[in-house]
């Protein structure tokens, strides 16, 4: 504020009137899918703490309106709260990856949590209920954002369904044969027996007594442990493989084989971020760079990265340059750029290659080695700055003008 007196109106203007209209809550900022995921995470933590709080109280009374309606064992309600919190925490990871299935399951689990809270309804349950009340509408309004399918390989589907099948087979079978087992009296007993057997724990408190029952147990052990092992292998190994790959910023071979009509971005430099913003929604992009740190951060953001030298032809053929729809060359060094353009042209004579020249004097050299289009970002930036100061227009509108000029 300057010390020169000005008329009172502009001064008060600054005090009471902002440039934009002032809202009570800037909904746009707080109503996105990200907030929904964060809130669900918050509910998970709150469920955990509330469950622990209920557990820690020696004798919980059930004051809720549903307490009479649900005939449950008090102890059961007490520890389910904590248990559900773990499930919810797992679902938050799914939500973070925008999985559709996680969204459906979250709704179901939140409904369950609400039921439990309405059964106990301690003072400590009220914050939980209120936060669910806020989270649910947000999840509903953002349901479009959670649209990714769970992608399971056929092996994974097969092993998962065979586990379900074996558990069903074992449970129903052992219940039917309960006379031939020691101590199987209820459905819980037979499920317990099957799980203990499949997990190769085998306490031995329930044992088969007849030959038929023994053969039955052997079948459960063989198929069950088999399915269990294969399922763990098929579910966990790809996850570990992906972790490892992420650490090195390299795409797995299986991911690379899926690529088609993608755009290769060779090298990582200052303009790569804006480039990715522009391309991300339109086509699949694969960034090829030697910079392991950048590769790892890009990979965390679900951008495909191949950590290898973009000037080698083998690398480019790994990145499926034959099926690529275009190549953008933009490393930090023009010499490397030239090598990358050469390698790309050699690997695929038809593909469209666009290169960014760090130095405007190198533009013609790029064209000579095979680039279809050469752009000098510095030159464009400089010209925009010049126009902006002369025409007093915003950079955005100048950008549109630039488009028109070039047409």
């Amino acid at each position: 504020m300057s010390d020169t007196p000005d008329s009172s109106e502009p001064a008060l203007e600054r005090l009471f009137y902002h440039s934009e209209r002032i809202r009570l809550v800037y909904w746009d900022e707080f109503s996105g899918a990200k907030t929904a995921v964060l809130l669900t995470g918050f509910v998970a933590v709150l469920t955990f703490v509330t469950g622990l709080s209920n557990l820690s109280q020696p004798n919980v009374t059930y004051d809720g309106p549903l307490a009479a309606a649900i005939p449950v064992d008090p102890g059961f309600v007490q520890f389910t709260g904590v248990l559900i919190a773990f499930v919810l925490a797992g679902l938050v990871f799914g939500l973070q990856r925008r999985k559709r299935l996680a969204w459906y399951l979250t709704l179901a689990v939140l409904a369950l949590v609400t039921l439990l809270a309405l059964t106990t309804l301690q003072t400590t349950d009220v914050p939980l209920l209120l936060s669910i009340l806020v989270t649910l509408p947000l999840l509903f309004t953002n349901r479009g954002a959670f649209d990714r399918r769970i992608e399971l390989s056929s092996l994974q589907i097969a092993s998962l369904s065979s586990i379900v099948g074996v558990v069903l087979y074992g449970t129903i079978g052992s219940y039917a044969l309960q006379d031939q087992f020691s101590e199987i009296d209820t459905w819980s007993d037979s499920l317990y027996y099957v799980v203990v057997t499949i997990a190769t724990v085998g306490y031995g408190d329930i044992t088969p007594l007849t030959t038929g029952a023994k053969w039955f147990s052997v079948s459960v052990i063989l198929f069950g442990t088999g399915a269990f092992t294969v399922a763990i292998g098929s579910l966990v190994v790809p996850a570990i493989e992906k972790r490892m790959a992420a650490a090195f910023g390299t795409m797995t071979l299986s991911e690379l084989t899926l690529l088609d009509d993608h755009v290769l971005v060779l090298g990582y430099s200052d303009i790569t971020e804006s480039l990715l913003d522009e391309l991300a929604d339109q086509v699949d992009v694969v960034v090829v760079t030697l910079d392991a740190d950048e590769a790892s951060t890009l990979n965390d953001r679900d951008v495909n990265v191949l950590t290898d030298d973009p000037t080698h032809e083998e690398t480019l053929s790994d990145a499926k340059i034959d099926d690529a729809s275009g190549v953008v060359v933009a490393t930090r060094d023009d010499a490397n750029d030239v090598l990358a353009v050469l390698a790309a042209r050699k690997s695929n004579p038809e593909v469209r290659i666009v290169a960014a020249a760090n130095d405007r004097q190198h533009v013609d050299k790029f064209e000579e080695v095979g680039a279809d289009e050469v752009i000098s970002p510095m030159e464009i930036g400089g010209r925009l700055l010049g126009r902006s100061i002369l025409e007093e227009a915003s950079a955005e509108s100048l950008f549109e003008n630039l488009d028109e000029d070039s047409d």
Partner: protein
Amino acid sequence: MGLQGVSPAERVLRKLLAPLCVLSGAVVVLGFFFPELVGETISGRIWLVISLVFFGSGLAYLAVLPAESDESMSELDPEFLLRVRRLGLTGTVRGFLSRQDPVTFGVPVAAFALFFLGQLLVPSGTIATVGATQRAVTTYGGWLFVAVMLLAVVFSLYLLVGPWGTVKLGGPDAEPAYTYPVYFTMFFTAGIAAGIVFWGPAEALFHYETPPPYFDAEPQSEAAAGAALTYALFHWGFWAWSAYIAVGVPIAYYVYQRGAPLRVSTILTPFLGVENLDSVWCRIVDLLAIFATIGGIATSIALVGEQFLTGIQFQWDVAFGTVGSVLFVAGLTFVFVVSAQSGVHRGIRRIAAVNLVLFGLFVVLFFAVAPRTVVVESSSRAIGSYAVNAVPMTLHLGNGLVADPWVADWTIWNWAWWFSWAPFAGLFLAALSRGRRIRTVVLTGFVATALATMVWFLLLGSTSLHLQQTSAVDVLAAIDAYGGAEAVAGFPVFEALAISQLFMFLFLALIVVFMATSADTSTLVVAVLATRREFAPTTGAIIFWGIFQGLVAISVLVTGSAEVLQAMAVLTGGPFALVVLIALVGLVGTFYRHERGRRSIVGTARVKLAREAEDDDRE
């Protein structure tokens, strides 16, 4: 600086507040969920301090968060760095003083200093004199308050339906600078302080014990209960809020239609003209406004501090004494100073939003657990009784033009108190109202706010009355045991309901936040009034006035002069009633001359009907 962006000091403050809030918050969450565990290790006193630190630092942190748009532009503020280098301490002080209006800045500072000096030297004398004067004014001058209040109500109602409601402040093309929710929230939370929280469960009980003479009911009878609830509505409903409209609408009209400066004295425009708003009369009005505001807010802060801790002492048997009150007031001052200096669009807006959310949450939860049929039945009866009796109740003074003791102590005292708050609340209403039609202003500041207040009083009042009548809890005995402290009333009431712990948490939070939202606005308004007309108040001036109000509140606590200062604030309500009268006469005259040819709601409806009839005829 603070108004424009984020100063370096604020960034440091944020770095300090965030860990403080998180750490104390963790303790609070632990204590809430695992009371046994925490109860063993932490004493009640420390527990309360930590909770208050959590809430206060949370509010302050919210206030200093950067606004959505101004973080980037303030990252490098070379002007600020230059200024720091250029000015030494004397330079800063001189620069600060040069922006202050010598009269409206100097006189209040000197007067309050003298007042406390006098308190220390001749305490008993001043108390007796001021008390007697206030009593005389409310008893013999009661008719004036009643007349002006009635006039303000009639004026508000006429603006609502009459032709002048269509005037759009700032011209037909003006766009409102605030969306409607934020407009309502900021004005509602600024216009009412922690009194609403304390008196919600208490006011009806007091009238139940000593029924108002107008209803002539047996104390503690069924009739007294109905009368009590009606009077609670009467004291806090439409009448009270109309005082703010009577100050706010004239200021807004002259500021936006005539280009007058945004000050309280602007209401004299029709008599002096826009050019002569520097005259002695204007200085007097502005001075009076500052006295009324600081007196009203500072005593409120001091009383809230005392009552808050009395409630704590009643419920959890943790005594604090004066030192506790002083610390509480200091903490509260910190919160509202940070909020006020961060600007209308940051701290004041955000804390108001927190306030409204907590208020709404409390009402909804309370309605869920309260005896609903009783609440609905006695509320509808009270509303009916209020509608029928409001005007006769206003006119009933007791002995002709002289108010009887009950009316003087409750109704007239209450009107005077609202009038003394009117300058600051009215000015704030005017400041927010650019681009709104006068009808919208009245609908917000008169109808919506009064309805929100009345819902609160009906809900809590009828519940506490019901509990008292059915002898479920003896709230009155609890209040009497603590020397008539209204803050005590809430706790036994909540204890009789489900999820009582949560209500007590919310209740205490509401007290703090309602006080903060009024005090930050009043700080801003006083800073505007004390700054020279050509300047906007600087961050320094806002901080100065905030701390000044906090200091007055602390001095009130230390010298034990809350009643005296409150009586004096009520006394400023007297001249303000006169100012309101003058303002209304002036504005009606101006409207009559300049705003002809507008249609009232009835007129618009008639024209519309006639046009439709014509269309029908044609077909």
